[in-house]
């Protein structure tokens, strides 16, 4: 019932600053889409353009095949949950949820039915007479969601809804949102966050944005395992993927790489003849690095340990490979007995290696 289609959508501010460039995106009914990206990437702007709170400077936005560029928010069939919840502070929980239906002149009985149904679903029935200030953060969050539910929208929009909650509550509410989606499989949901964990756990598909462009669209694990470019590779995963400058020294069924630390090894990737001799960027995730135990394993990283961070379930080693180079991070399971200044050699399985060209694009996806 609600497919969204964005075609060449642009946003240009009055001062001629282009903040969104040619966004193309197809969202199918029932999908849970997460917009993620660093702050200032335009993810909230894009959401607000879909909601109608922000005008669209170019391109078209279709909901169920209708172009809705000029349609006011209330008529687009969307509902929005704001970051600050935006509850009306002078109205009770009941009135907050009933407000949109009252504006739409829905009959009193129908309003009551809808509000009580949503309250029941969100365990808010006992709080209907309270003012927002008498609620906890989590309860306010649920009222904001309830306010969206009663409108029976085609599309739910969430603008960083968990960022005002403390860590424990955030996890709990994240699960509630996942449950909510489960109970309304036919509703489309678009969710904006800067938190990659939320993105990874909630999304059917992630839309990763940076500086007004879409960097990659795909399932969470696809982004993790198969990042389209260095930006995506470094954004998804924590600590971020290690990127080491390299040169392609041999091509063929397998490529030979020489890192700027002079380690060279083979990587199972098929490259064309003209790639030979080009400089590239080699990537490996900290959690994929292993201590080299066998002489047959290639050496990827070798150097002195600069810092050790023991987290309990894992140990982070920061390895200095050469003067002036970024420290390489390795995340090894368990508590390990390394100390600053120890020399260490690290390796990784060939299928866990990533290779990007000088422009940052992933060779596997070219």
């Amino acid at each position, binding site marked *: 019932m609600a497919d969204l289609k964005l075609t060449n959508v642009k946003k240009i501010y009055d001062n001629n600053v282009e903040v969104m460039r040619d966004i193309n995106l197809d969202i199918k009914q029932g999908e849970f889409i997460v917009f993620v990206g660093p702050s200032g990437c335009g993810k909230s702007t894009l959401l607000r353009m879909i909601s109608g709170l922000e005008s669209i400077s170019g391109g078209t936005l279709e909901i169920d095949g209708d172009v809705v560029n000029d349609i006011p928010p*209330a008529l687009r069939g969307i509902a929005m949950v704001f*970051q600050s*919840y*935006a509850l*009306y*502070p002078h109205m009770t929980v009941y009135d907050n949820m009933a407000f949109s239906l009252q504006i739409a002149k829905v009959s009193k009985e129908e309003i009551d039915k809808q509000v009580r149904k949503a309250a029941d679903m969100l365990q808010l029935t006992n709080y209907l007479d309270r003012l927002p200030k008498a609620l906890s953060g989590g309860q306010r969050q649920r009222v904001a969601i309830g306010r969206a539910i009663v409108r029976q929208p085609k599309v739910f929009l969430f603008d960083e809804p968990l960022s005002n909650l403390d860590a424990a509550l955030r996890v709990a509410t994240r699960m509630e949102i996942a449950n909510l989606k489960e109970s309304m499989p036919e509703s489309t949901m678009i969710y904006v966050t800067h938190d990659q964990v939320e993105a990874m756990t909630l999304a059917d598909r992630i839309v990763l944005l940076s500086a007004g462009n879409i960097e990659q669209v795909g399932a969470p694990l696809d982004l993790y395992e198969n990042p389209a470019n260095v930006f995506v590779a470094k954004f998804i995963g924590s600590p971020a993927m290690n990127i080491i400058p390299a040169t392609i020294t041999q091509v063929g069924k397998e490529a030979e790489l020489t890192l700027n630390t002079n380690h060279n090894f083979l990587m199972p990737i098929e490259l064309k003849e003209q790639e030979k001799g080009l400089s590239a960027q080699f990537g490996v995730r900290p959690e994929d690095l292993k201590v080299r135990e066998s002489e047959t394993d290639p050496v990827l990283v070798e150097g002195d340990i600069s810092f050790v961070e023991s987290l309990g379930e894992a140990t982070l080693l920061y390895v200095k490979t050469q003067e002036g180079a970024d420290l390489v991070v390795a995340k090894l399971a368990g508590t390990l007995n390394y100390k600053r200044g120890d020399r260490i050699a690290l390796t990784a399985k060939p299928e866990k290696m990533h290779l990007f060209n000088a422009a940052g694009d992933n060779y596997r996806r070219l």
Partner: protein
Amino acid sequence: MVTSSTTRSPLTFVVHLTVLFLVVMWTIPTAGLFISSIRDKDQLSVSGWWTALSASEQRLVTRIEIPKDQSMENGQYVIRGNVFAEAGDNTVSQFGYSSLKPQAFEAGTKAEMKKGKTLIVQANGDYVITSPKAFKGRGQRVFYTAEIPPRFTLDNYREVLTSEGLGKSFINSLTVTIPATIIPILMAAFAAYALAWMKFPGRALMVAAVVGLLVVPLQMSLIPLLRSYNVIGEFLGTGSKTYVGIWLAHTAFGLPLAIYLLRNYIAGLPREIIESARVDGASEFDIFRKIILPLSFPALASFSIFQFLWVWNDLLIAMVFLGNNEEQLVLTGRLRELLGSRGGNWEILTASAFITIIVPLGVFIGLQRFLVRGLLSGSVK
């Protein structure tokens, strides 16, 4: 705030004393006014209000009335009576029969006068005057020095409210003040919302203009407006001095501050609440009525207190746009008129002044919290 344990006690003592001194300085003028307004007018005019609680020593004079049938006692004509018109705890200390020596005799002693007459005035004011011949002509004057105990009365208020016309002026002041407070709030709230949240060309310029108009002196407006009012009043046949005229004048002069304060407040409301209402389908008018107005209550309250005080206390605009005719004179105008016509009658002036300031003082004391909040939102950033 700044504390240093070694210097604290003597310093704090000095601070307490200084503040106490300043508070006394600031309250005594008003206190004096109030105390004077409830004193007896004869006492008020001869002694300072700070002596109100002690008996006042007054030098008085009375003339003995000669009754038609003069009574005879022991061959002497005798008149008895009391120097005080009303009975009370008054006491006479000295008396005399000549204006040159008003304190010649102690109370209770016998004064020998010319032609064999005698006069005795007792401490309680009773007097006996005797004469060998019948009294005739004007009665004898008796000078006496009396201790009059303090007397408090509401007579001054009774007088100014009725015969001096303050009661009528009080209602005139209300008639001017209430609409002149509500109308600008309505206008300013709508304008402030538009300036804060609606998009239209020239908005930034208008905000700057409002800030500029905050300080334009009223004096600039008086002559042109007076001329316009005369023309309009003639055209409409209503004359230039109308309540509507003064409401609108007060409204316009209050608007810059009202718009400025309310715009600051409304612009500070969370954007998401307003957007949420838009997503919920509310029109701009709905948003204004159902979201902005209830949420702006503190700002509306503080501005209305300002405007109320300012309009109630205004003299200039009332004099120019409402005039000085008896029917429309407001309290401040009446007080100024009394200051001219009854300049020496402090019992009238103090009571009138107190009636003039009692309403704003009440508003001020009752709603100080809102007033302070409003002041701060207007000035501290």
